[in-house]
């Protein structure tokens, strides 16, 4: 079987994921700060949308950004646990639960935005699918944590 190019070690992969997640935080903060300018630029080219953005839409947009920050925080905590080799544990399951709830939160936010910009319905569907996948991953890790606890307390 030919070797896969650009394959990194487990540790390097975790470090890369950690720094990418860490980099996402300031990006989200900058998005929040410059959202009015980004919205103005988008509205100039957006078809079938005229007039100012209503407050409810601004609320949905900033709520989506806040949820993204919470999700990124959960990712960082989870990746730190992976680096400490403590991934199969209750706190890691909690992080995955937060991530799945964040995805469902984004589903609702983008579904609301979809009434103004229909493309957002597709983003909402994708967020819902990812949220469901995260739920299953949470179930798997929860089971793994229970098996590990059983093994750890087998003398």
């Amino acid at each position, binding site marked *: 079987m030919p070797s896969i190019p650009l394959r990194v070690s487990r540790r390097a992969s975790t470090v890369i994921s950690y720094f990418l997640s860490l980099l996402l935080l300031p990006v989200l903060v900058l998005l929040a700060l410059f959202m009015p300018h980004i919205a103005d630029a988008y509205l100039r080219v957006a078809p079938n949308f005229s007039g100012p953005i209503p407050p409810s839409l601004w609320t949905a947009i900033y709520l989506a950004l806040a949820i993204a920050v919470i999700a990124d925080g959960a990712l960082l905590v989870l990746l730190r646990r992976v680096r400490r080799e403590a991934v199969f544990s209750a706190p890691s399951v909690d992080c995955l639960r937060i991530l799945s709830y964040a995805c469902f939160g984004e589903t609702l936010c983008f579904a609301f935005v979809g009434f103004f910009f229909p493309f957002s319905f597709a983003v909402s569907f994708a967020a819902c699918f990812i949220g469901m996948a995260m739920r299953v991953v949470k179930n798997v890790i929860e089971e793994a944590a229970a098996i590990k*606890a*059983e093994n750890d*307390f*087998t*003398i």
Partner: protein
Amino acid sequence: MIIVNLDVMMAKRKISLGELADRVGITQANLSILKTNKAKAIRFSTLEAICRELDCQPADILEYSPDES
């Protein structure tokens, strides 16, 4: 539930936790987990080693008690 009466047998044989752990070949931490009824399972090899070192039967250190929940 299964109750581990290891401390009773250890007192009878006058052996400390550290010494028993060394003889059995497990860490003091693990033996302490067993002694304080926090263990979820015990390997036969560990039980055999404990019974050998304490010169006792499994029934001397393991006791069944119906759950009172």
